[in-house]
């Protein structure tokens, strides 16, 4: 993204073998560039893997350090699994790299563009589950943005990629992107707290739902969360989620799990609302009474809810 001319990642040879672990890699193509290095698609012993090579070995090693620390759990599906850490020699100079599981899929923003905004809330709920695991390991993700979230092709699972921003709780966030950064929105500092990630998640949800045009037109200077609230108020898809979103903006959730539960509750309501109408038409006479009384209760609840939200906003 930046027009960087920091010593570019050295061109990889087509084949290379790790200096220590002696695994051989065949380079297929470049997958992308992060702040710390370049990721390539490679094949190693017939298996596709992603390999990240950086200019500064220490940055790569720090990523490995957090990848390792967050992978102690057995069923960790937070990010890609780490496969190998080694050096390769390019032009006589040793370069540190690591190999990881190759996650085939689409970046979250591309995925939403392709599949529609109905998926946003579902993906956020999934993402929050991943974040919760990371948080329980004592880390926050830091640089949350759609480009760092991958939806796998086969099982439509959300996975985090690019661990360059992952930060130990309590430290200063290592890497961020202004658009999703709490401090940039004047909503807090950059200390690594659970609420920092949740803030970014909420901004991401808004960003993905409204599309690029609305997003760009709605942003003013200085940035303040009031602008986000305005967008939410105007968007039919976001409005039902205003309460959890606002709470995230103001750091009111203690855990990702809490935020997830609230998003999920709204999501269930909104999913339930559509098919219910169809069901009612199909109902037999005997059920009509129950249907009507149910409707009455529902409308009462809705009214109470509206009043509450009117007060809340």
């Amino acid at each position: 993204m930046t027009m960087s001319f920091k010593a570019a990642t050295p061109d990889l040879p087509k084949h290379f073998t790790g200096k220590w672990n002696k695994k051989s890699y065949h380079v297929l193509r470049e997958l992308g560039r992060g702040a710390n290095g370049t990721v390539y698609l490679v094949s190693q012993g017939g298996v596709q893997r992603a390999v990240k090579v950086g200019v500064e070995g220490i940055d790569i090693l720090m990523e490995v350090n957090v990848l390792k620390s967050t992978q102690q759990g057995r069923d960790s599906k937070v990010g890609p699994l780490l496969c190998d850490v080694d050096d390769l020699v390019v032009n006589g100079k040793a370069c540190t790299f690591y190999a990881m599981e190759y996650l085939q899929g689409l970046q979250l923003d591309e995925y939403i563009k392709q599949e529609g905004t109905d998926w946003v809330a579902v993906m956020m709920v999934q993402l929050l589950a991943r974040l919760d695991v990371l948080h329980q390991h004592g880390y926050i993700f830091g640089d949350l943005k759609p480009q760092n979230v991958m939806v796998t092709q086969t099982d439509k699972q959300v996975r985090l990629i690019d661990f360059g921003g992952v930060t130990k709780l309590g430290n200063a966030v290592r890497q961020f992107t202004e658009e999703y950064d709490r401090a940039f929105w004047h909503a807090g500092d950059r200390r690594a707290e659970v609420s920092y990630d949740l803030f970014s998640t909420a901004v991401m949800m808004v960003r993905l739902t409204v599309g690029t045009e609305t997003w760009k037109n709605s942003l003013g200077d200085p940035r303040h969360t009031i602008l986000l609230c305005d967008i939410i108020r105007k968007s039919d898809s976001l409005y039902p989620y205003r309460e959890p979103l606002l709470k995230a903006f103001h750091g009111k959730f203690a855990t990702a799990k809490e935020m997830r539960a609230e998003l999920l509750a709204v999501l269930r309501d909104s999913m339930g609302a559509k098919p219910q109408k169809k069901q009612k038409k199909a109902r037999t006479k005997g059920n009509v009474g129950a249907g009507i009384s149910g409707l009455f209760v529902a409308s009462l609840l809705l009214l109470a809810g509206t009043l509450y939200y009117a007060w809340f906003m």
Partner: protein
Amino acid sequence: MKEATLRQILVVTDGCSNSGMSPVAAAALAREQGITVNVIGVIDKSELGEKGEKEIRDIAEAGGGLCDIVFPQQLAQTVQMLTRKAMTRTIHQVVNKELKEILGDSGIEELAPDKRVQVAGMVDELGEKSSLNVVMLVDTSGSMKPKLSAVQQAIHDFSISLHSRSGQSRMAVGSFPGKQKHLDIRIPWTEKVEQAHQITSDLAMSGITPTGPAIVEAIALFEQDKLPRSLQERYIDQDEEDDSNGMLRDHVF
């Protein structure tokens, strides 16, 4: 290892220096004194040109630091990232040197990757906990004018980043060219810049860009700790005096 104080100068500019000593030599001088020099080139529509790019790269190299060229919108995050990476690099070099003393000739490169990952974790923690002093040098020559609001935001933003660290951090901001000297101190050493200062008013607009002399004067800022109290006046925020506000406005953008 002792908790170190890391010292950095961060130059924000949009073109070539054209006055006084070579900024590359000035950066080398800074490095000699244990100060790392990082450079960010801010470009708008116009490019920096080959000469400008080369100078930026050369200053950073001579100053043992890092450089980047970005659009104004990316300035804030670049400031934070360059600073952190340069810090990591410095600590890494120190750790490596100590390792070499322990292990003989072979430094960290000769350790197996697994061990190095552990060292990286240690470097990371040291970076977070060590003290950090940064002087930000802002080029305020004429062509920078449209970019100054971004710079102003970046200054405030940087202070938030510093404040979020566990270790002690201080920053100072200077602009060049200054009115009388090469460098004007806009924000004296502080732990937190409370708000974005007005950068656009009160500018010494000129075609002169004395990047080299400004770096040399910035080096002096790091020596103020050793100065007797009476000599610190120039750098101290005199908020006890009533009439200091007017004076401060002169100093602040």
